[in-house]
């Protein structure tokens, strides 16, 4: 093998070793290159294989539940491990409900924090606040859960939930009874957890908007807020959408903190104060005690749902981002449309 290849490629080998004195022979070098290609390809393939394996295992393990309940699993509100009757609606509902609360609050607070950092704060404040935000993002979620359980929930119960439901309990959103743990508590804890992500991503997005664009707006005699509203936010739209989707993704998948504060009840209620469960928290709550095969399969099917939803959110995000970019609204100034051409930006 070695002999044949060295004989066959002799002229080539001589020429290349002549131009590259002291280097490895060409055959060896190209073998190294092949090995590199193979190694990187394998690593990349492993990622794909892992994703496929997860999908396959989830699908196979949830087969008993799928064949027993069919598509109705999605809309059944009944979850009874004793009678072995399972439906995912309470958890889909809980996930949507808490994610909505968390996303709305976290996007508002995160984007405003980022605006303060990039447009208002001076150098010193900027550094301290920027560091704090990154630090917040690194706190383990169980800490947020503890804080939610021992600080947020008692406070919410005494100062928000009880007074509101006593005065306006006829309004379904504020209906009692109040236990303490529930949708609002979970949504708030989630919001606090994802604010740093939203703030950090938004800050990058704002920082990437060229300073000259701000200058141009100010030079037309507008105030800071007018500049932010009419130039900065539109220019940052695509990137901010990315931040929102990241927030949604994190909120949907977050397990530990939510499990600690949501109240662990399989019920569908519109009340902010009602206890509930999300897709991830029901799995965390019940896996240890799911001894029946059907119960396990139902939990697996919820895992599969969560997996697919996450996939959909990510695909949707990409599609949205691509569409925004294609509308040429994010093309940076002077990105080089050909001179006098009928440029089709993007």
């Amino acid at each position, binding site marked *: 093998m070695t002999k044949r290849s060295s004989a066959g490629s002799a002229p080539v080998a001589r020429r290349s070793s002549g131009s590259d004195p002291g280097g490895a022979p060409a055959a060896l070098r190209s073998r190294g290159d092949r090995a590199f290609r193979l190694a990187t390809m394998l690593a990349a393939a492993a990622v794909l294989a892992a994703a496929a394996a997860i999908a396959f295992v989830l699908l196979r393990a949830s087969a008993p539940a799928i064949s027993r309940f069919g598509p109705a699993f999605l809309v059944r509100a009944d979850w009874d491990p004793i009678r072995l009757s399972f439906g995912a609606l309470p958890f889909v509902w809980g996930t949507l409900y808490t994610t909505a609360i968390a996303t709305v609050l976290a996007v508002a607070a995160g984007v405003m924090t980022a605006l303060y950092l990039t447009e208002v704060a001076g150098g010193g404040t900027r550094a301290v606040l920027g560091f704090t935000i990154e630090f917040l993002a690194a706190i383990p979620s169980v800490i947020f859960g503890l804080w939610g359980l021992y600080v947020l929930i008692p406070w919410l119960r005494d100062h928000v939930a009880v007074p509101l439901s006593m005065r306006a309990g006829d309004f379904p959103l504020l209906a009692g009874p109040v236990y303490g743990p529930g949708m609002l508590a979970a949504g708030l804890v989630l919001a606090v957890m994802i604010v740093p992500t939203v703030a950090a991503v938004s800050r990058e997005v704002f920082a990437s908007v060229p300073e000259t664009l701000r200058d141009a707006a100010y030079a037309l*005699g507008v105030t800071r807020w007018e500049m932010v509203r009419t130039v900065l936010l*539109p220019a940052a739209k695509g990137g901010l959408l990315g931040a929102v989707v990241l927030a949604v993704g994190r909120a949907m998948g977050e397990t530990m903190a939510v499990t600690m504060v949501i109240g662990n009840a399989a019920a569908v209620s519109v009340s902010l104060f009602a206890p509930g469960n999300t897709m991830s928290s029901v799995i965390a709550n019940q896996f240890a005690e799911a001894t029946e095969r059907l119960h396990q399969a139902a939990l697996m099917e919820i895992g599969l749902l969560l997996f697919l939803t996450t996939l959909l959110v990510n695909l949707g995000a990409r599609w949205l981002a691509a569409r925004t970019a294609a509308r040429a609204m994010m*093309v940076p100034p002077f990105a080089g449309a*050909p001179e006098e051409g009928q440029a089709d930006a993007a």
Partner: protein
Amino acid sequence: MTPVLEAEHLHLMYGARPALHDVTLDVREHEVLAIIGPSGCGKSTLLRTFNRMNDRIPGVRVIGSVRFRGRSVFDIEPTSLRRQVGMVFQRPTPFPMSIFDNVAYGPRMHGVRDRRRLKEIVETSLRRAALWDEVKDKLSAPAAALSGGQQQRLCIARTLAVEPQVILLDEPTSALDPGATAKIEELIEELAGAYTIVLVTHNLDQAERVSDRVAFMLAGEVVEVGPTAEVFERPRDPRTERYLAGRPLTVARRGVRGPRLAPVGEWGAR
């Protein structure tokens, strides 16, 4: 008659670093004043004091006075000052919106709501910026789809739309090719009758072609100011003479490329 803009014994510091030193300069009604000088000589900084754009940079300190029609610019609200003293930048800065909305931006922000009035303003401004014929059929197209030269004329139109009295041009052609540059220069000459224009430029030929007076700056100081022809042909200060001698004489003007004599800073046009 009071000058439109005047700087008097103006010093400016970025933190501890001096950028302008004892600058005294006036800008007269309806003239085109060109400010020339090597990179980093402070010409853009001086330009940005006239509409207080330096306020945006942290750590800037100013000593001395800058007046707009006899009134200190520091006593005028920046928003109001900048409506009267407009500015166009080195690189085109179209906003991420349609051509129409770009030009209508200023008037809208300053309270013009009437659709017909806005259309009028947009058309007038685009005509004055010599861009109307090229874009009249695609006013709702995104501004980013225009070429660099068109984008720069759009930015000029956007500035004109707020009806300023003065236009500050900060190297408006340095990012453009020669064809687009020629169009902007023509435009400057056309606008000269109606507006007071201050042009910062690296391009000495451009300064010579379009300006009535020229100021030469070096290391934060104004070395020499005078009628353009005079400064270019009989500079009084040896430093001006050295700087002007260092430029390559363009084919169009002299037919041959001149000798490079110990340039003071960077020479000539890009």
